[in-house]
């Protein structure tokens, strides 16, 4: 009786999943095909005369500056987020002190604050501080806005590193910093990779913050450059846009795939205790 149920269910599952896979896959088709097609338009969805011309054009025409700026934003944000959230996450994971619960709750609350709502006051503040149109200004805001979620994740990861090992090291004469450096950090490497890569992706792919805070075109990251590229030239070359978008997307996707299986462990935030 139950046997009969099993096979159709599994076949039906695969059928539904394949349909859904098509839904997720189809929009990519244009990006992939158009980027390899010179003189592509918005309807180019099959390879006719594939070539690398579009990519060559992007490299030769000086559009590379946008990628460079995005990489600078992503990398600096990544490093700062990792260093700062490691420190804070370690303390929150290992120490008991008054207000700890309050601090954790405020961090969770900050995670939910829409960055978009902060951008105008930030803009006004940056005008006063002279940080408008400055890369350090953009980076520090990325860092500050990514920290709540990063600290939360980092604490979750550090919680899973056993305290016993650390205590053993202290007994053997290791200092607090020594045990943190030699034991906790290596053991939580996957967690650190997740936090770092999410930090990188957050800054690297962001459009709105640099769009508002930058005013000189040579500082624009790829997201803003792509947006202006699309609108400001009389004859739009869709093939080149697709190639640009492709080059811009690949690092983010590739980096994420690298840490994907660790990420899932970290985001299981409290919800499913039951």
């Amino acid at each position, binding site marked *: 009786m139950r046997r009969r*149920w099993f096979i159709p269910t*599994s076949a039906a*599952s695969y059928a*539904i*999943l394949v349909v*859904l896979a098509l839904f*997720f*896959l*189809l*929009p*990519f088709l*244009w*990006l992939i095909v158009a980027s390899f097609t010179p003189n592509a*338009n918005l309807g180019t*969805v099959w390879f006719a005369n594939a070539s690398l011309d579009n990519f060559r054009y992007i490299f030769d025409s000086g559009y590379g500056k946008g990628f460079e700026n995005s990489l600078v934003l992503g990398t600096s944000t990544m490093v700062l987020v990792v260093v*700062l959230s490691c*420190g*804070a996450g*370690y*303390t*929150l994971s290992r*120490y008991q*002190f008054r207000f700890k619960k309050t601090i954790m709750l405020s961090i969770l609350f*900050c995670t*939910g*604050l*829409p960055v*978009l*709502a*902060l951008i*105008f*006051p*930030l803009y*006004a*503040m940056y005008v006063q501080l002279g940080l408008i149109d400055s890369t350090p200004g953009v980076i520090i*805001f990325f860092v*500050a*806005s990514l*920290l709540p979620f990063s600290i939360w994740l980092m604490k979750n990861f550090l919680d899973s590193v056993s305290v016993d090992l650390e*205590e053993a090291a202290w*007994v053997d*004469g290791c200092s*607090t910093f020594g045990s943190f450096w030699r034991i906790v950090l290596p053991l939580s490497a996957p967690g650190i990779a997740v936090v770092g890569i999410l930090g990188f*992706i957050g800054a690297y*792919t962001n459009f*709105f913050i640099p769009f508002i805070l930058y005013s000189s075109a040579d500082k624009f990251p790829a*997201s803003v450059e792509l*947006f202006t590229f699309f609108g400001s030239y009389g004859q739009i070359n*869709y093939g080149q846009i697709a190639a640009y*978008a492709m080059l*811009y*997307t690949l690092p983010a*996707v590739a980096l994420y795939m690298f840490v994907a299986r660790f990420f*899932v*462990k970290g*985001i*299981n935030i*409290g*919800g*499913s205790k039951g």
Partner: protein
Amino acid sequence: MQADAVYPLPAAPRRRRRFRLGMLFMLPAFLVMTIFFLGPALYAVYVGFTNLALTGNGAAAPSWVGLNNFHQILKDSQFFAALRISLTYLVGSALIGQAVLGMLLALLMRNRRPLFKTVLGGIIVACWVMPDVVAGYLWFAFFHADLMGLGTGTGLLNTIVSTFGLPQHAWLQEYPMAAIIVANTWRGTAFSMLLYSSALEGIAPELLEAASIDGAGVVARVRLIILPMLKGTIATDLLLITLATLSDFTLVKVLTGGGPGFDTQLLTIYMYQHAFNFYQLGYGTAIALLIILTGAILSLLYIRVLRVEV
């Protein structure tokens, strides 16, 4: 605690020193967050009650205007139109689209082959981590119609539609709301799927097996066991995707620019217009505060309705 006894230093001073070091570890992160995140957040509350602007009187000496901004917003019919559009977008793309589709995917992918899971999961996640601007262009191309023959090409959707002999449509002009809902569902489903998949792993297979031996069908197992056990995760997910969707800007800006007319003008696009095109920062910030308020009310609602402790 017992380990204290064997520390090489006397316990108390050592613990104090350790404590101070711990605070030192935490300090830089909190300093940065306080100045550059909480600072603007608190400042926002103040700015929302002033006439701060980029030009004119409000630029030189912004003054306190009390509830004026809010009065003005609540008198603006465009605000309510934008609110309605944002809520439609939220319900359609996040609550129905992302959460339901994410749950469906998580459930269906449970016992599939690892290779299949990896490939499909990879595709879905790629939609999620790609830059907003790129996602906007992908869907712009997908929905594109060249009804007047300008040589911009026929988008994939219209190509598919005409293969089946159906009429082509200028989707982004004729069905703008449906278009942005579909695009955002596509973009954000991965997050809900990941959250639910990892929560599903926490449900013991024996439990489901026992239920199925007792005669519970697939639907009953999902409704009576899986959903109740995932209540906390569902609340967390709804909360996070609601806040993310309410503050969404880029995807819709690239795809429709808020148009045609004001048909897809989300609250955030309305806010952007006022703050940066009309230079009224105080007014724009007041709108931002209302967006946060909307998010907060909805979050409380989910927690209440799903009766979870957070």
